[in-house]
């Protein structure tokens, strides 16, 4: 990995994942809620701020559609970020499982 980033917030992680297909804001909120079985409910104010930041960073782009609502899509840079985040999470997970003896409860 050439570039290291601080950990993503859960919100940003799920926003980026949601945007592997073009979606508008509400679509992101719904998919995230679905993927986490209702655990992560993104606030519309939170997601609006995050989308602006991600657009500025070039991790996502607006996806022009004929629809009324603005849709967004992840960029190649965004996908790289997600890949390195997944490796980081795998490291966290593997170390946790190795030391505690697995995710047994």
């Amino acid at each position, binding site marked *: 990995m050439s570039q290291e980033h601080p*950990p993503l*917030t*859960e*919100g940003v992680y799920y926003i980026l994942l949601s945007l592997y297909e073009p979606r*508008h*804001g*509400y679509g992101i*909120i719904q998919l995230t809620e679905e993927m986490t079985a209702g655990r*992560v*409910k*993104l*606030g*519309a*104010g*939170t*997601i*609006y*701020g*995050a989308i602006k930041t991600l657009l500025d960073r070039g991790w996502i782009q607006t996806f022009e559609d004929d629809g009324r*609502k*603005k849709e967004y899509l992840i960029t190649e840079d965004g996908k790289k970020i997600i890949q390195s985040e997944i490796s980081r999470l795998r490291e966290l997970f593997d170390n946790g499982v190795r030391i505690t003896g697995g995710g047994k409860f």
Partner: protein
Amino acid sequence: MRDKKLIFRLFFDYEKEEEWVNGMAKNGWHLTSFGIGNYAFEKGAPGKYIYRNEMIYELGSKDDSKEYIDFLRDSGIELVKKKLNWAYFRKEAADGPFELYSDTSSKLAYINRFHYLFLFVFFINLFIGIINFILYSYANKESINDFVAGVNTGVAIALIYPILKIMKKRRNLKNQLEIFND
């Protein structure tokens, strides 16, 4: 039968104001408009809506609220009324819980809007107050400097409590960010 009412009430605490508006909604009175110290309600099904107030942009910064309001509307959130940078939004309670900010970092960014605004107004008032106290000591009997000094100092003092409250909240949020990611 009255199905509309106007209530005059002054709030210094925006969270208390929001709680009160939500209490009214639980009793079947839904906010439709507001002004300084007055609130208009319309009779409806008790508990139909959840309300949130928001400072939608910082005064002095660019008003980009149209885009934000459109974004919220597309997410199923209705703008009740917007006056300058202060707005009320609502969502049907049947859709589940309604919060505009869901993680610590965005809550912190939001509360900072109040923090800086309140501090700014506090120091401006304190400054004008002190200047007028100084002028008063040189002025003749008919001067209004003592009155102005009193008003500005009063405003500054009235702001101390909300400022402390916001500072405490900021500290808690920051502490949380030291252990948790968001």
